[in-house]
């Protein structure tokens, strides 16, 4: 055995290109399935953990997935909008606490989440530096966002312009960073948090401008309103000085939300709330664990196809290895013949070549596995 190992190792070390090709080929075949396995495992665990930590989520009738993804992870398509009226309705039942979320706009590519201090308390979000974003125009960053943007308290963060052709609807606002949250390992690390009012302004529901109406700035005067021309610049940054000029044009109850986290006071109240929503024409109340299990069901169904593909590629690779073993006998006939002439048995020769192949394949598999872990870690960070 020692001899086989030595001869195999010497051959692998001497014929470097051949060895590298073999090891690399196996490594590449192994790398992706391992990375995917780790990623799917980690992501599904994270999704489930978040769902378990969120008893109920309410919103407008529409896609269940959009609502849960938005309310829990600030991801996916914006769900049908609900409103403050819905929030008030839940609170009015006295069955549950309700936390509003408006997660529609983005800042530097990250979801911009408007909510209230209740949210931070509920999620256990703690400002590692600075304070919570309680004032109009203030923002606090999730841990990952702060790290990736290398942003600190006192900097500003600009919101993204979602629609370049509709400048009137909403426009880039510069928010002051007043805090950075401690990392939680959840979707909160990758979001920018603002007060609900700030989110509405960013969303274009409210704005601020100089209230001066002069001949220079007025486009037309109607009995009940004045329309300004574009010379009236909307403020792009909320400062203590212009804070008062910001205002909303919609009645408070109609101000939009994307989702509402519902925290029932007890099991019975949850049941009662569900009963109410069952007959609601406009709203829906979801149990996130159920919806997430459904989503993961799809994911794992797709993963099964991937696994089957991996199995096929693995089988093809195994066949290739057999082919290589067969070709080896031809290509290295001289070496085999020398060993035969010296008196080596067929078994001894097969063991030498088998060891060589096994060493190369194991090295490839180990390298591929390590590579898979590295890809996984890079992806997660």
């Amino acid at each position, binding site marked *: 055995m*020692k*001899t086989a190992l*030595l*001869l195999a190792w*010497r*051959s692998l*070390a*001497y*014929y470097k290109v051949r060895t590298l090709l073999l090891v690399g080929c196996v490594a590449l075949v192994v790398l992706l399935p391992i990375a995917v396995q780790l990623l799917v495992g980690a992501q599904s665990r994270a999704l489930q953990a978040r769902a378990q930590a969120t008893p109920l989520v309410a919103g407008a009738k529409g896609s269940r997935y959009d609502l849960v993804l938005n309310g829990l992870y600030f991801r996916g398509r914006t769900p049908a909008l609900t409103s403050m009226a819905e929030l008030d309705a839940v609170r009015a039942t006295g069955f549950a606490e309700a936390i509003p979320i408006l997660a529609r706009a983005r800042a530097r590519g990250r979801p911009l989440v408007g909510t209230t201090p209740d949210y931070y308390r509920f999620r256990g979000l703690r400002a590692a530096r600075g304070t919570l974003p309680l004032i109009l125009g203030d923002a606090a960053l999730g841990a990952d966002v702060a790290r990736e943007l290398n942003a600190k308290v006192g900097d500003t963060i600009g919101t993204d312009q979602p629609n370049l052709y509709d400048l009137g609807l909403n426009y880039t606002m510069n928010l002051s960073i007043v805090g950075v949250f401690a990392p939680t390992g959840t979707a909160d690390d990758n979001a920018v948090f603002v007060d609900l009012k700030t989110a509405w302004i960013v969303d274009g529901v409210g704005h601020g401008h100089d209230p001066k109406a002069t001949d220079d700035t007025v486009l037309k005067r109607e009995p009940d309103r004045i329309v300004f021309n574009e010379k009236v610049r909307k403020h792009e940054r909320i400062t203590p000085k212009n804070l008062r000029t910001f205002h909303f044009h919609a009645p408070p109850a109609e101000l939009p939300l994307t989702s509402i986290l519902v925290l029932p006071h007890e099991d019975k109240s949850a049941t009662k709330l569900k009963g109410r929503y069952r007959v609601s024409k406009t709203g829906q109340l979801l149990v996130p664990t159920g919806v997430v299990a459904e989503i993961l069901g799809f994911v794992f169904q797709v993963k099964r196809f991937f696994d089957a593909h991996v199995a096929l590629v693995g089988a093809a690779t195994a066949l290739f290895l057999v082919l290589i073993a067969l070709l080896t006998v031809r290509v290295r006939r*001289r*070496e085999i*013949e*020398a*060993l*035969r*002439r*010296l*008196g*080596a*048995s067929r078994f*001894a020769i097969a063991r030498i070549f088998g060891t060589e192949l096994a060493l190369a394949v194991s090295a490839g598999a180990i390298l591929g596995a390590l590579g898979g872990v590295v890809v996984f870690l890079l992806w997660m960070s």
Partner: protein
Amino acid sequence: MNGARIELKGAAYRYDALVRVPDLSLAPGEAVACIGPSGCGKSTLLDLAAGIKVAHDGEVSYDGEPWRALAETDRRRRRLHEIGFVFQEFELLDHLTVKENVALPLMLQPERADAESEPIAALLDAAGVGAFATRRPRHLSHGERQRVAICRALAGTPRLVLADEPTGSLDPDTARRVLDLLLSFVRDRGATMLAVTHDHGLLDRFDRVISFDQVSGSGAPAGNETAGGTA
């Protein structure tokens, strides 16, 4: 350790045509040279003597036992344990060092795989290639490679040494020195040796010389072509 007894009687091996080799009887401890023109069958003779090839005709015996009567495994084992062969083309492995190449016959025997490396170093020194112990055969001259091949044949302290033109690539001085090494090794241990050579100046060193010329027309019996094939 006593040398092996080799006997060939009317032996012939069939490639495309039948190649006949001279009758031959080597007593234990005898050192015999074999001469003959190119292509006459000298290498074939050595292969037959070593049991690498089995005669299609006639009989080749090792210690009184016909190779033909032995199973392939036994022929192989005997070759590995008792015969040292200097191949005409050396058959060194490129990926092993000189020292490992020489130790290869020992490494292939599980019970001797952990043999001391000193005798091998001494052997390499005696052949004048001790300085190349850790080099690959590729990085040696032809003559140096030939001496490595000789060391490999002797490493297992064989009872029979078969050498196919062991001094073919060496200058006269080195040839003489290397042949002396071979012969002193064989004589010290009482081993038997059969060497093919074209070097007529060295023939006086051997106990006996057999020539292929004697075989031509000697008409070994034909017809008995039952067993045969390459080992």
